[in-house]
């Protein structure tokens, strides 16, 4: 049942800089301890080595990957290596001409985020209004023959407008619509009381998603991802720790997941100092929670341990202080109470989001 770990997907975080300032950003909350940024040449070697290890996909992401000047060169390199090339983006800054260049270089799939159906709400959530720009980018992507995913991160601030959001997204005729509820790590954990939907809001969103799935069958795939806090069983985060994903940060650290940098006590190797294959196979952070042998109870004797791998390590660390603990999202966890309490501890509506990542300054900006 357990298959051998195999790197399938490289997640290349090209920069932490971003025009948006979402209160649930998955980038680290402390950006001060960054090392030197990777160069184009470093990234090309990472791409080559990931493919040699077996990777089939690369996600160029960030921050905002469009702020990385050498993006087209990296896209071309990845495509040369036959990797499936995804770009995860806010859609800004981007002209039609640059998108055409990226498509020409080998880009195949654009995942475009939309925060809200209105300008005011977009500003409230992302700190900037890019809605018109995003609509243009979606149309260009279709014209250029790219696969298009509209990604909508759901939380209390926009879950009530899901009908409008779906109508907007459907109008763009994307291939996929991803309705991903916020997971409460990093920035989102700091803003949890403000972002957490109620069970009723979530149920109603789930019904809308199911109706859209039915309505759009064969044209647009609609995915709905529950927040861990309402799931009762943990997610196999990243398909299991170090099972198929590797994240490389703008400053060259190889991580088993986006949020892993927040776990203190783990050592992450620099891709400039060690071969990627060695990091993947023997790197201490990758080995630490790979598989199921390290599991404590209640995971150790749980029949679902090969399915969910004990859930999310970052969440376990953030909520219990113990990285080896069962993910408290699991109702069998002795710490599950903190999840139940958080569902109820919602800040009064209308209270401003106080914690937000600062406007970005980045060395890669050219």
């Amino acid at each position, binding site marked *: 049942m357990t298959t051998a770990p*195999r790197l399938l997907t490289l997640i290349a975080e090209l920069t932490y800089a971003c025009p948006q300032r979402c209160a649930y950003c998955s980038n680290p909350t402390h950006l001060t301890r960054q090392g030197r940024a990777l160069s184009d040449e470093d990234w090309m070697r990472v791409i080559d080595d990931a493919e040699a290890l077996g990777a089939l*996909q690369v996600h160029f992401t960030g921050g905002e990957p469009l702020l990385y000047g050498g993006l087209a060169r990296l896209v071309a390199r990845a495509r040369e290596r036959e990797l499936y090339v*995804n770009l995860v983006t806010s859609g800004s800054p981007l002209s039609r001409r640059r998108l055409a260049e990226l498509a020409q270089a080998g880009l195949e799939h654009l995942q475009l985020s939309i925060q809200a159906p209105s300008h005011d709400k977009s500003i409230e959530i992302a700190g900037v209004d890019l809605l018109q720009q995003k609509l243009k980018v979606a149309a260009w992507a279709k014209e250029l*023959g*790219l*696969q298009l995913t509209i990604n909508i991160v759901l939380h209390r601030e926009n879950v009530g407008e899901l009908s409008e959001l779906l109508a907007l997204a459907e109008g763009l005729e994307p291939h*996929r619509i991803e309705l991903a509820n916020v997971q409460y790590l990093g920035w989102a954990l700091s803003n949890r009381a403000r972002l957490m939907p109620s069970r009723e809001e979530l149920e109603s969103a789930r019904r809308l998603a199911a109706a859209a799935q039915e309505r759009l069958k064969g044209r*647009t*795939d609609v995915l709905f991802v529950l927040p861990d806090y309402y799931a009762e069983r943990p997610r196999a985060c990243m398909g299991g720790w170090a099972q198929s994903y590797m994240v490389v940060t703008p400053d060259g650290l190889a991580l088993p997941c986006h949020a892993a940098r927040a776990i203190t006590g783990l050592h992450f190797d620099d891709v400039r100092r060690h071969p990627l294959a060695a990091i993947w196979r023997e790197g201490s952070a990758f080995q630490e929670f790979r598989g199921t042998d390290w599991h404590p109870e209640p995971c150790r004797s749980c029949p679902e341990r090969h399915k969910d791998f004990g859930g999310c390590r970052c969440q376990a660390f953030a909520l219990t202080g113990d990285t080896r603990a069962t993910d408290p999202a699991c109702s069998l966890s002795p710490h599950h109470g903190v999840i139940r309490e958080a569902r109820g501890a919602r800040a009064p509506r209308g209270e401003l989001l106080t914690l937000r990542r600062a406007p970005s300054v980045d060395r890669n900006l050219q």
Partner: protein
Amino acid sequence: MASIAPLNQASRPRLRPGIRLRHDRSSGQLVLLAPERGLALNASAGEIIQRCTGELTVEEIATELMHIHRDLSLPELEVQVMHFLRRLMDRGLLTMEMTR
């Protein structure tokens, strides 16, 4: 959407733009690459998908595969091919060229 042509013996299936077939060195299999997905294909699935170029009709594809599936009649094979193609269509990976 350009064409929502029906699926029958005369349809010409083609992978949607941005969906790509590649050889996977590790497994020796063909994989179908799509956003967030890589579908490992068994030998017969690979034989079908390699022929989904928008040129051949379902009937022509089934005819070409007759030598691999000697136990099946052409109509039986067509039904199986269409059943497989339908699943790919439902997952948004395949489209049908309008009959020419």
